[in-house]
């Protein structure tokens, strides 16, 4: 092989995704596309009440309706449905209420399932639903976390409205705050969000004798199989779970759902394949929600801006029940409030609270966006208090490039990072100094349209997760990942991965990795995933873990393939294995590179198995299961310039620069897509999205007409760039990118809005920063200020506002009007 024949490295190539041709030409295998002989359709009656006793359920009329096979109430399943699982009992005394898939005597959120109809098609099922007569005795809803914990509050569960309190910390927090020159205290609100995956959930469950196959739109086929076995008692080896093409999840499909359990139980009861596909408005009340925290934060600093201590007290809304990882989500943030900053002391406390709302659970970023929002907002507030440039304040406190590896106050060891490089690049692309000058001019001129600059110098913990860490946090499972490499006789490769892609492009990225590892063409690699009968072992996809953990498992499996191949190649070449070196994608004789064997040639030799040395098995196939030693820590600097029309409250993002350091990039196109989508989703939290409830506990944003998600028309062109500081913790040097954009962008946008309005005395605008809220924040600050904000307000936009707490009254839920 000459130099010109060298295969180009696949890792780093911006390859178009293999899966896209199928996905965009209607050849997909969505769960809802699956039709089986004899299949019946189930529809669910859901509670219209947030909290009620079920007095009676009469399904008799529905049973008699045309096309209906069966109709059931919760009582019909009481003996077999068990309780939906929570795998993360975060404290020994945590309250984990019974959570039946179908409510039996009480409903605790609007949308909870109370009855079902099974019919020949979904139209007949929908018609028959209207014939089910449920009598409720309404009870008072529990809608507010603080009120839920107050004396005399209506109790949602026999054990009360508190699930747990989880304390954490390091250093002497009292000493850090005692005599601190600057202390600021804030309360931020993380609104409730609805994940809104493109593909609504769907499940098909088919029984054959006493074995069951379930196709479901899930992120976690492997975890689901284990959990279904535990919940229903159906033996694990008689369950097969398949995640076919899955159209996004954002954490919402990291779940064991009532609908999946009921589909399984109905398939067993009826002996027929059962299908359920949700509608969007059904999904909005029934898919687990995300975020929803009240964050009370306090920071103490020296006069020069050095952080002394950070004190975080969270109320986290669990919703009505604990689902798969509900209580663990806010705790993932415990390690991230300190972010990239050094400090003397840190205290974190989180109380999980039950309310009569849809349960919450993981949503893109899961705990980390919440923490990042709070600390990055707080850093801006501190800078304003100190009269410092907010970037300078961050630099004063962040971990310096030369200080890595660095063990943070929260106890994590960040292996690598270069905050200086990312920030420098971002400032330059953004035109930071020029925008600051324009901002000052507008302020001086009293322009009705102000300019704000928002900063987010974020990091996150990815690659969930070292199993021993998960164990120490009381999570029920591990954080490893599995991979298998199957060498086919013709030199083609099948990669079996325990990761379960649902839009991430694993088929492409994994092919690139394997192509390099085994010296085969990209096109010769096929990736198999998402079926427990094919990929028997896995921990699935969430928490930006697939590349870091699953990718490393693949590298390790490829290494085993190579080592097995080396022995066979040596026999083929009649040399000692020690005389071979892996060079240019093949095993060649050291010093005589023309003498070598490609992995394909060796694979055929292994297949024929004619001349293998004694004791060598006729197979190159290899498995690896990898458990990481540490998390990975992507970071970056995001800068947002926002124009705020102070007459209307309208916010326009003028420019957005994202410089991310996600380590080594396998496929820049995929990374770019993840960053763009992530930023959009974080902007959506900042400006648009909120699951709003009325005073009786009904979700009033049950359709996409009311729950606003932005489209491309609402977003600016993002300017993206990368710095590359490879992770030292895995052989690929990768860090993960699935959540970075979402984590970074929310505080960048809100900080920009607040920055624009600080001259008016505005210190916060509650999310989402709707035009009305922005306008009211200005009005309230104006009303509270002793003097009207003159055009002559000092041009320093980062100067302290006169009334940092003016926002408090505007935080009420406007939907209750």
């Amino acid at each position, binding site marked *: 092989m000459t130099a010109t024949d060298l295969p180009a490295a696949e890792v780093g190539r911006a390859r178009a995704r293999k899966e896209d041709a199928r996905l965009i030409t209607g050849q997909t295998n969505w769960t809802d596309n699956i039709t089986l002989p004899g299949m019946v359709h189930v529809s669910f009656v859901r509670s219209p009440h947030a909290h009620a006793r079920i007095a009676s359920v009469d399904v008799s009329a529905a049973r008699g309706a045309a096309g209906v096979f069966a109709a059931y109430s919760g009582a019909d399943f009481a003996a077999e449905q068990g309780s939906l699982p929570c795998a993360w009992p975060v404290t020994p005394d945590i309250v984990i209420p019974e959570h039946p898939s179908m409510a039996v005597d009480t409903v605790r959120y609007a949308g909870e399932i109370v009855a079902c109809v099974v019919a020949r098609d*979904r*139209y007949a099922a*929908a*018609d028959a639903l209207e014939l089910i007569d449920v009598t409720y005795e309404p009870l008072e809803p529990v809608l507010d976390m603080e009120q839920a914990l107050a004396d005399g509050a209506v109790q949602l569960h026999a054990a009360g409205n508190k699930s747990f309190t989880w304390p954490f910390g390091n250093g002497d927090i009292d000493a850090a705050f005692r005599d601190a020159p600057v202390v600021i205290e804030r309360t931020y609100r993380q609104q409730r969000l609805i994940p809104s995956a493109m593909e609504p959930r769907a499940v098909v469950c088919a029984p054959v004798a006493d074995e069951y196959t379930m196709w479901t739109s899930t992120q976690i086929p492997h975890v689901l199989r284990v959990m279904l076995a535990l919940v229903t008692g159906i033996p694990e080896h008689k369950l097969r779970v398949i995640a076919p093409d899955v159209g996004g999840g954002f954490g919402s499909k990291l779940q064991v759902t009532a609908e999946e359990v009921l589909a399984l139980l109905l398939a067993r009861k009826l002996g027929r394949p059962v299908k359920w596909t949700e*509608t969007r*408005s*059904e999904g909005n009340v029934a898919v687990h929600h995300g975020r929803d925290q009240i964050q009370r934060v306090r920071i103490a600093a020296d006069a020069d801006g050095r952080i002394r201590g950070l004190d975080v007290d969270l109320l986290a809304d669990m919703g009505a029940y604990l689902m798969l990882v509900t209580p663990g989500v806010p705790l993932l943030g415990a390690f991230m409030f300190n972010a990239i900053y050094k400090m003397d002391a840190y205290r974190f406390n989180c109380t999980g609270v039950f309310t009569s709302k849809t349960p919450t659970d993981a949503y893109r970023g899961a705990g980390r966006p919440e923490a990042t929002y709070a600390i990055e907002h707080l850093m801006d507030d501190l800078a304003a208090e100190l009269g410092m440039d907010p970037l300078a304040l961050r630099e004063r406190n962040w971990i310096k490039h030369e200080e890595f590896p660095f063990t943070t106050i929260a106890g994590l060891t960040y292996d690598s990072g270069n905050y200086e490089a990312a920030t420098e690049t971002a400032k330059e692309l953004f035109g930071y100094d020029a925008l600051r000058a324009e901002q000052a001019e507008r302020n001086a001129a009293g322009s009705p349209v102000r300019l704000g600059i928002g900063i987010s110098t974020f990091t996150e913990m990815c690659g969930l997760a070292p199993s021993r860490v998960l164990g120490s946090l009381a999570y029920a499972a591990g954080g490893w990942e599995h991979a298998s490499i199957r060498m086919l006789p013709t030199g083609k490769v099948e990669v079996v991965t325990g990761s379960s892609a649902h839009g991430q492009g694993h088929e492409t990225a994994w092919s690139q990795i394997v192509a390099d590892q085994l010296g085969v063409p990209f096109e010769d690699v096929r990736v198999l995933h998402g079926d427990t009968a094919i990929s028997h072992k896995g921990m699935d996809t969430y928490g930006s873990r697939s590349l870091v953990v699953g990718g490393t498992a693949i590298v390790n499996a490829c290494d085993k393939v190579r080592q097995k191949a080396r022995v066979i190649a040596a026999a083929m070449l009649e040399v000692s294995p020690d005389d071979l070196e892996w060079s240019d994608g093949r095993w060649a004789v050291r010093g005589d590179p023309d003498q070598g064997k490609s992995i394909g040639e060796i694979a055929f030799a292994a297949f024929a198995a004619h001349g293998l040395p004694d004791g060598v098995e006729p197979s190159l196939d290899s498995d690896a299961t990898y458990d990481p030693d540490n998390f990975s820590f992507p970071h970056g600097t995001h800068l947002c310039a926002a124009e705020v029309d102070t*007459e*209307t409250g*309208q916010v326009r993002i003028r420019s957005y620069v994202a410089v991310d350091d996600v380590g080594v990039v396998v496929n820049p196109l995929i990374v770019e897509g993840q960053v763009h989508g992530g930023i959009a989703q974080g902007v959506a939290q900042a*400006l*648009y999205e909120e699951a*709003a409830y009325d005073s009786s506990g009904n979700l*009033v*944003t049950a*359709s996409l*007409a*009311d729950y*606003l*998600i*932005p*489209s491309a*028309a*609402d977003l600016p062109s993002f300017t993206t760039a990368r710095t590359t500081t490879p992770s030292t913790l895995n052989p690929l040097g990768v860090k993960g990118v699935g959540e970075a954009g979402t984590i970074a962008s929310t505080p960048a946008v809100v900080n920009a809005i607040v920055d624009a309005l600080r001259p008016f005395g505005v210190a916060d605008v509650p999310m989402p920063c*709707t*035009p*009305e809220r922005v*306008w*009211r924040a200005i009005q309230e600050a104006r009303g509270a200020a002793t003097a009207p904000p003159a055009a002559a307000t000092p041009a320093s936009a980062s100067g302290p506002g006169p009334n940092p707490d003016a926002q408090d009254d505007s935080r009420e839920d*406007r*939907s209750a*009007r």
Partner: protein
Amino acid sequence: MIPAKFDYTRPSSLEEAIGALAAGGEDAKVIAGGQSLLPLLRLRFAYPSVLVDVAGLAELHGVRDAGDALEIGALTTHYELTKDPLVAAHCGLLAEAAATIADPAVRHRGTIGGALAHADPAGDLPAVITALDATLIATGPDGTREISPADFFADYLTTSLAPGEILTAIRVPKLDGWGYRYEKFHTTAQAWAIVGVAAVARRADGHVAEARVGLTNMGSVPVRAHAVEAAAAGAEASAAALAAAAASADEGTNPPSDLRGAADYRRHLARVLTGRALAAAVGV
């Protein structure tokens, strides 16, 4: 979601359509582009007995020059309004407003007649034709009649169309030489207007000779801002003078309070946006 069962008929003439509608009684509904009706059916907010699909009626399509007015067939889609040369030449406001409706898919299916007959005060076109002093033409079992916007929009999602009557066309006076602006204020591009202001104005000698203003989502029906029109007539063509004229924009309105904004915020927006719309229409 899934609609309840309904009958469906696709007549081939207006006469046949009116017959089918009359025969269907109270619960018969006309469907054109379906962009408002289908969501209601799917959410089971509406249970029509029969849908009379008028999409095949050629006489309801297209824009026609009718001398000092344009006659726009009820089945003209929003997209067609944005592209039609007659509309562009004589009634730019309609094209500008149609371009802001929802998203491209909706604009290609949704029709002007459907949008007006749906009578959603948050829809854009009702306020626009109110500002334009357009005439709605309806045909029913008792013949054809002409209806003013003020009479047509009876209440929230309610028109004065009688059972069996079909909106067939909208006659819009040509406003050659007038300036115009549809100032739509919404949170996302696809969202309904929190408030919208449709303004047309004629300028002469540095002053506003005549102005007409319609308001979107400031009450249960589109609102004609008569006080603003009176204040603007004769006013100096300057942003300050027009902002002053716009101060009465919320007079006589009854805006809703909902997720997107409380009534007081809408009143404020109406004043600000009316000033801006007039300024743009007048060209200052």
